[in-house]
């Protein structure tokens, strides 16, 4: 008994300490999730309003000669903003984001990446992608300022024709247990898509709207704002999703550990009993032999 029982006991002890760690991580990420959700609820009105307003404006207007619109120039180089976590241990969260971006990148010839989050950066660096920018450890305390920095980099790249289209890959937060990886195109804007998004087919109101000082000036101002708000929204949603994913992963890890401990305890008791039975048999056998 001694050998086997001790081995199982040691095993139980190690699983138990793992369980304590995963349990602690679960608690930490639930409280972080709560905070991230509060953030999300606070920023959601802004995000939705900007998106809606700009979609409406773009859908209502005639095509404007602007570098931000589809067809302004040939697409040679694509830029991907990939939002991942800084740390692992969050189930399929990071690999889903990377998978999604890779599947979209497949059709592109020339690619550069702006990595947000350490995991994504490590991956793209290791595989030799072109990194235009990297932002690490910003997600937990994300502020609008950071999003602004990222978007001004993006706008610069786009305006100087270093890149010709920009995608954002992030994880949208559907609910605490459900997250969806999404890949959206930030630039150039497509007017037909905008029209679809605002729904019903409307006649154009362009003539009735006054753009001060001029339509072009307004658009040149609005588009960066639009990109900014989409990036910010993507970051906030990703941060919440990350915590949600981690909480789920840790919860199932804890459950698995509990199950394992139960099984091991059963095995341990069985082994202990077998040893006792054997000992008794030996004693009885010895006593018998003495007779």
């Amino acid at each position, binding site marked *: 008994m001694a050998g086997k029982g001790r081995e199982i006991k040691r095993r139980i002890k190690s699983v138990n300490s793992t369980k304590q760690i995963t349990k602690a991580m679960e608690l930490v990420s639930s409280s972080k999730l709560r905070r991230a959700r509060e953030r999300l609820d*606070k*920023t959601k*009105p*802004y*995000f939705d*309003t*900007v998106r809606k*307003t700009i979609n*409406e*404006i773009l859908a209502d207007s005639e095509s404007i000669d602007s570098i931000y619109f589809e067809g302004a120039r040939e697409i040679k180089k694509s830029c991907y903003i990939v939002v991942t976590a800084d740390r692992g241990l969050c189930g399929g969260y990071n690999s889903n984001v990377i998978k999604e971006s890779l599947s979209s990148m497949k059709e592109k010839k020339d690619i550069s990446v702006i990595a947000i989050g350490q995991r994504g950066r490590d991956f793209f660096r290791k595989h030799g992608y072109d990194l235009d920018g990297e932002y690490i450890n910003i997600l937990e305390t994300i502020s*609008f300022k950071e*999003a*602004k920095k990222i978007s001004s980099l993006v706008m610069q790249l786009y305006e100087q024709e270093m890149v010709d289209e920009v995608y954002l890959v992030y994880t949208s937060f559907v609910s605490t247990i459900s997250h969806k990886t999404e890949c959206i195109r930030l630039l150039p804007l497509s007017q037909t898509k905008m029209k679809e998004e605002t729904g019903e087919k409307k006649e154009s*109101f362009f003539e*009735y*709207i*006054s*753009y*001060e*000082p001029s339509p072009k*000036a*307004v658009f040149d*101002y*609005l588009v960066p*704002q639009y990109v900014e*708000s989409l990036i*910010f929204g993507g970051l906030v949603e990703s941060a919440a999703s990350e915590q949600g994913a981690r909480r789920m992963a840790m919860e199932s890890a804890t459950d698995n550990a509990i199950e394992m401990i139960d099984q091991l305890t059963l095995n341990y008791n069985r082994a202990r009993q077998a040893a006792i039975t054997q000992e008794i048999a030996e004693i009885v056998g010895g006593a018998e032999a003495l007779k």
Partner: protein
Amino acid sequence: MAQTFNLEIVTPERSFYKGEVEMVVARTIQGDAAFMADHMWTVTPLSPGLLKIREKNEIKKAACSGGFIHVKEGKATIVSDAAEWPEEIDLDRAVEAKERAEKRLDSSDQDIDTDRAKAAILRALSRIKVKEEYMGK
């Protein structure tokens, strides 16, 4: 009594204001502009400045740091990077920010972002103005 319309002000940090108003005065990039009910549909960028909101019985003031306003039938939406009520403004911080930005502008360093520094000064000035008016009354 003037007609009212719905005004909504949103910032990335929160939903700043929502309600029925008679008039709103905002600083557009071409100067102050007042919007009342039945205004023509308009979209125009805002520069940092004072925001005056006239409700039925009361006039509210706030500092707003850029963004844009979108006026549609019966509804106006202001989307801004940041907005504050006077009681939320930290005067010392605003004064400091102004001095810092001015120093940046004065320095002979070629790398500084002049537009950003100027915008920072405008932002700080509007905050200081709103706060001082508030304290004076």
